């Protein structure tokens, strides 16, 4: 066999990545930038979890219409995530409650976690990236 087979170029290593989204959409560029980085990470076949907490839960609301403010409506991209094998979407129960939101208000299917469950999920990650 060639030497190439013995070299470790890092491909094939799968790490657990958590993307922690804490900002509302549109008011800052964090939500859109975070979504783009998630899609890039998934292209490298990594184990991706997306977490929405604090104002980040607002990113997933149904009924978003951005025509009036003339910015891209990226909310539909969340529905395309499972096409990129990103199926682990988590929202924080307390953040939803504080904003009067329920799962029915969201554009995608999510898993709702308590703060303790969220803490455990974060602790088991290899990489946590915050937006």
């Amino acid at each position, binding site marked *: 066999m060639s030497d190439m087979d013995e070299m470790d170029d890092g491909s094939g290593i799968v790490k657990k990545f958590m993307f922690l989204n804490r900002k509302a959409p*549109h008011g800052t560029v964090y939500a859109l930038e975070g979504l783009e980085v998630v899609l890039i990470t998934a292209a490298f076949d990594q184990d991706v979890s997306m977490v929405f907490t604090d104002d980040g839960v*607002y990113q997933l609301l149904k009924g978003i219409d*951005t025509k*009036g403010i003339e910015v891209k409506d990226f*909310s539909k991209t969340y529905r395309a995530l499972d096409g990129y094998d990103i199926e682990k979407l988590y929202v924080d129960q307390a953040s939803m409650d504080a*904003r*009067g939101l329920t799962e029915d208000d969201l554009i995608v299917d999510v898993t709702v976690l308590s703060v303790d469950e969220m803490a455990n999920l974060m602790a088991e990650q290899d990489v946590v990236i915050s937006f």
Partner: protein
Amino acid sequence: MLHIVNKSATDRGSLESCLAMATKGSAVLLIEDAVYAATTGGAAAAKIQAASADLKIYALGPDLAARGMAARVLDGVNVVDYAGFVDLVAEHKSCQSWL
């Protein structure tokens, strides 16, 4: 006087600072991420409703729509478009933006 708030009340303290300083009869315009405060069910709803007794509360419609909140506006909040925003600025002697 017109007060303009553009930050989410659940992320920053600018709405609270504004409401503490706005005097009776003043206008408060919520734009960008501040519009969440003008919607039902949220943590800031009670503060906005209490404040609307003494202040005129406005929210920018295009920012509500862009956040999926157009159908959740609190009673007592006046929704304005960009032309209405311009009118508010023109009608008031001074403006304070709570950046």
